């Protein structure tokens, strides 16, 4: 049987949803895989929505908003873009980045709305079913995705992403303006850190583990793990509960 993906679309009310309406009025035909959730502004799309969607087995998720400069709420679409970038970076750590897509579609682009939906549907068809749906369900991936959700929902990444434009325009607390590139670098390293920490935390929730255990489980160099263990401990998120020989075992608090 042909694979028919399940696709979810988040459309802003003022441009993209209106573009979808125009596609309808103009009887533009496009693949019937997409299911739409209307939000007032693309800036409303919380990273959690995208990550939850993937967790429940949706094959592809597309966010659509107004073109730059057209946002009904002035600049919500810029916020959407920054958030989306972060989610994309996080997902690239587990190779799911191609399952999500951001696109600007205006209220006059009925034909284009159809084209965008068609090409996204095609691209998901090529990727095949989500590893989080159906028979080949990948439990490990689900756990990683949970770690990603926790990382994205954590205060550090949320604050970093939300203040990105503020820092670029007004400067940070020291009044320094930081360039897009520098900020992206900071963001990428923060994303990698947070993802790993959340994975460690998830593992330590169930049973006490040593650095070596974690290193094996997560397939990551033990020196890197140790670095994070120290910082997690400093933040009072974990502590060792026993020492076997000279090896400490940690658990989530």
């Amino acid at each position, binding site marked *: 049987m042909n694979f028919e993906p399940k696709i979810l679309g988040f459309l802003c009310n*003022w*441009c993209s949803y*209106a573009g979808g*309406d*125009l596609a309808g*009025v*103009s009887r533009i035909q496009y693949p019937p895989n997409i299911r739409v959730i209307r939000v007032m502004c693309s800036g409303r799309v919380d990273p959690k929505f995208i990550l939850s969607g993937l967790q429940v087995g949706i094959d592809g998720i597309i966010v659509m908003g*107004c*073109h730059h*400069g*057209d946002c*009904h709420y002035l600049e919500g679409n810029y916020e959407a873009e920054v958030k989306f970038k972060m989610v994309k970076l996080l997902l690239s750590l587990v190779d799911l980045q191609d399952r999500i897509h951001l696109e600007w579609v*205006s*209220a*006059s*682009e*009925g*034909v*284009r709305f159809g084209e965008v939906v068609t090409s996204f549907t095609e691209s998901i068809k090529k990727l095949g079913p989500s590893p989080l749906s159906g028979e080949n369900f990948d439990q490990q991936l689900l756990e990683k995705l949970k770690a990603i959700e926790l990382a994205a929902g954590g205060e550090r990444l949320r604050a970093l992403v939300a203040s990105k434009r503020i820092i670029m325009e007004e400067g940070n607390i020291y009044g320094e303006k930081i360039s897009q590139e520098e900020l992206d670098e900071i963001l990428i390293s923060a994303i990698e850190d947070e993802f790993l920490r959340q994975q460690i935390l998830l593992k330590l929730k169930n049973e006490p583990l040593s650095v070596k255990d974690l290193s094996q489980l997560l397939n990551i160099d033990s020196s890197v793990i140790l670095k994070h263990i120290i910082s997690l401990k400093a933040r009072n998120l974990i502590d060792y509960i026993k020492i076997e020989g000279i090896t400490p075992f940690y658990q989530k608090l």
Partner: protein
Amino acid sequence: MYYLERNSSNVLIIGAGIAGIQAALDLADMGVKVHLVEKRPCIGGKMAQLDKTFPTLDCSICILAPKLSDCYRHPNITLYTLSEVQKVDGSEGNFSVEILKHPRYIKEDVCTGCGDCAKICPVRGILNYFDANLVTLAAAYIPFPSAVPPIYLIDRKRCVYLTHGICVLCTKACDAEAIDFTQKDTIIKLNNISSIIIASGFNLIEDINPLKEYGYKKYPNVVTALEFERLICASGPQQGHLRRLSDGIDPKKIAYIQCAGSRNIKDKKYCSSICCMYTTKEAMITYEHDNEVESYVFYIDMRAGGKGFQKFLERGKAEYNINYINNKIAKIKVDENENPIIIYEDLNDGKIKELKVDLVVLATCIIPSEGNKKLADILGVDLDEYNFIKTKPFFSMETSKKGIFTCGCSHEPMDIPRSVAEASSAAARVAEIAKGR
């Protein structure tokens, strides 16, 4: 709960372009009852036909559509489409008005806008003004899919039932039973109108003058700016994929000719004010679609005084491959492949030169709204030498008659920001009177 409602009277606004709509919404939001008369079947005027708008390049219909539906739904606005004012008596504070409303032959409150009537209608070939006559429709039609009100109408001159008494296929096709061939012209009388705003907008010179000297209509690859707006618009006749009308080839070299019909000593001596800007806009949009396109703008003076306009032009030069040529056009001819050739005097060095391009776009002169003469007679207001509504110096909303105001392009060519500001200013003046002070 409106503070004003207690003692306010009614207001008449003529023309539902962006200016008329803004004035109507402001007054309605103040609690004043507005009667808005539009001669076309739908509201929005020229702005609804534009693709994107300078200087921020936002999509015209996207920003306009919410205003259209606000205007249509506002409890204080009564909208009369396909209507004209035919008689006005009285004076400031108390005008009485007669509106002639033409039938749609479709019941406004029943039609669901499904378009089944248009699908079945056997008559074709009705030129659609909305798409600058580049598209034809059936006799049962709606000018554009997102038109407001979203109600179809039947062209009385072309419907074969109305002209020859046969057909009624649409009546059968319409499940909602909205079609009503018994509708007649009706006259609506309004009393106690405290003041009137004229927002009749503008026409373009090609509506009355074939622009022979530019080869317009003779050469298929010479088009007007408004036609071009439709051609590059995603909801237009070519779905936004620009092709030449002669052979369907994508143009790579486009010339834009400023002041076509304007600043002309013999006839329209004035400057149309907005063409310099919209030309750069059109060239930018074209470049965004296809960045192999080279643009040449033939201009006399570059007029870009509005907010952000200079920057817009600089961006055009730097990022969008637009070349500006200070010139006087002598003539346009074509080669055997219908490629236009422009012969011009370069005002920078005084030499006569030629440039061969794939497509020519004419920034045509803005002229007074077609019915201004008749309207001015009915209202008793003065016109200027060109038939624009005459206004008082410094007070651009005041006409020669007390209680009658104007805004937007009905009295002078101007861009959207100024049309909107003027519309609000006319509303402010009207509010003084409507409140009986």
